């Protein structure tokens, strides 16, 4: 029972990532309405940590890593980690991936995600370049 549900999580998450990669191979984010936008941003104008990750994948697939990094630095850096984790889950289905990382580091990563989210919404110069595309236009919090 544990095996099959773990396996299905691995399958579903791999399929989800593959679907996104396939979609950006054929569709251009922003030029088509077939790619769903970020719900948080659509509702509040706030940049969530994932905003721009579809565009990030698009630029990666089309061979422009520099633009990809500017769209979403966190996704860009987390992508190899995620790929590694998925490969490990496929190769050794029931092993614990990343379970030997010291707990403080995992929480620190969570803190980094939150800090990234807050920073990219500040419209002061060093922070707003974390917003998708590195642009400083529509950030929510106006710094003095």
């Amino acid at each position, binding site marked *: 029972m*544990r095996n099959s*549900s*773990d396996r299905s*999580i691995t399958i*579903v*998450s791999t399929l*989800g*990532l593959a679907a*996104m990669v396939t979609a950006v191979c054929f569709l251009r984010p922003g030029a088509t*309405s077939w790619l*769903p*936008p970020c*719900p*948080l941003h659509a509702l509040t104008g706030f940049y*969530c*940590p*994932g905003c721009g*990750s579809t565009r990030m994948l698009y630029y990666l697939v089309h061979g422009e890593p520099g633009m990809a990094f500017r769209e*979403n630095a*966190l*996704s860009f850096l*987390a992508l190899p*980690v*995620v790929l590694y*984790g*998925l490969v*490990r*889950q496929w190769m050794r289905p*029931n*092993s*614990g*991936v*990343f*379970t*030997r*990382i*010291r*707990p403080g580091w*995992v*929480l620190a*990563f*969570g803190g980094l*995600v*939150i800090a990234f*989210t807050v920073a990219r919404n500040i419209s002061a110069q060093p922070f707003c370049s974390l917003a998708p595309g590195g642009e400083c236009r529509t950030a929510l919090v106006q710094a003095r």
Partner: protein
Amino acid sequence: MFCPQCGSKNDEQSLHCSQCGAALQQPPAVQAPVQAPPPQYPAPGAQPYYPPPQFGTAPPPTLPPVPNYLTQAIMATIFCCIPVGIFAIIRANEVNKKLAAGDYAGAVQASNSAKSLCWWSVGAGIGFTILYYMHQLGKF
């Protein structure tokens, strides 16, 4: 032996101290010898009796590893659903913490909680995508 009350010397077999009368002999503790179960003659047609293995001869059972779904938690945070994703990261951290502390049962519990959070984030992502497409198609 010496009396525990007054300290005077008494015979080894004495029951009471000759000086103060205190009891000397403790009733001997009953030492039950450890016995293997007696072999039994099996009834006709019954299974033969195998004595259970002695402790220390069989290797200890290895516990299955506990996944923390951190990979999926990161994916959920970045692609799907940020609030659920952050919770999933926190749960994954709990799994690591309990494993490091040796609390296997607690780690399994945290792992199951992380797993259900991952399913919630999948549901949220799929649900939002469906709503989005329905809105696009003018069904809303």
